[in-house]
């Protein structure tokens, strides 16, 4: 479950980037060679956002062919 550790870091990174804004979508690029499972990332994301500024946000995973594991962008209001 290293996906959980990745999502914990992601939540604190995003919270630091967006300030007061409300986060609706977090978009990741996850490569098929990246050693992280999109399903496990989604599950861990739900666990990690609970009780944070990101609660209610959707995780949008764009699957790619390479080994990318990147936070691309967030949609906020």
């Amino acid at each position, binding site marked *: 479950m*290293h996906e959980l*550790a990745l999502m914990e*870091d992601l939540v604190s*990174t995003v919270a630091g980037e967006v300030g007061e804004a409300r986060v609706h979508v977090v978009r990741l690029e996850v490569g098929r060679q990246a050693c992280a499972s999109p399903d496990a990332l989604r599950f861990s994301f739900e666990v990690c956002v609970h009780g944070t500024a990101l609660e209610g946000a959707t995780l949008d995973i764009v699957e790619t062919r390479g080994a990318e594991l990147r936070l691309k962008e967030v949609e906020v209001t």
Partner: protein
Amino acid sequence: MCTTCGCETDDVHDHHHRDHDDHHHDQVPAVRTLRIERDLLAKNERLAAVNRHSFAARGIAVFNLIGSPGAGKTALLESIIRRVRTHVPLAVLEGDQATDRDAQRIEGAGCRVRQINTGAGCHLDAAMIEAGVRALAPPRSSIVFVENVGNLVCPALFDLGELAKIVVMSVTEGEDKPIKYPHVFRASRLMVLTKTDLLPHVPFDADRCVAFAREVNPEIEVIRLTALRGEGVDEVCGWLRAEAARVWPSRRAAGIASP
């Protein structure tokens, strides 16, 4: 034509309701997209880079041992410790989900050790290694072994700032493990094939296993080992010394390499 509002222009333009700011209805605030573009492992990789620099500056050679539970990582460490502890200062960071049983074994072999229990965690990360090495306070020209949590998947992803990763697998596992779990074999510089004394009793083709490992990592070096009988231990120690010489002050490395 703009596909959002149907106007004539092809240029990208926003569709905020700026034209009627004077009448406030309960409009949903416009969604903005913030580009961030950050590697998810960035935090760990930053810490790992700091570790690597700091270990090299202090002349500490750190090796990260990765393998399935039961591959023989602790037995390998015990035999290395018995062989070189009188020549080289050694210390071990033991990663397990629970208990300090492995730390007790390492201590029993005569080596400084610190146990890290990860609880639910499946791997060690760079921050744990920084704290562990700080607590062990190894001297210059020493070796620190990190025995990672028994797992072929997650530890491959987390750089600890080590000098080299070493993958440990035994002949009682499937010989196709290198192609089934390619990440860790690709990331490792050395594969230690353990329990080779069992080869006559198990349907394991060692040459085929090595071929699979080189299929995912053509550069990987391989040493066959029987920890119980001590075969291959000298070869592993020689490999470790040659690698450690890259960060040890040169006089010490020369002294160790030619006993």
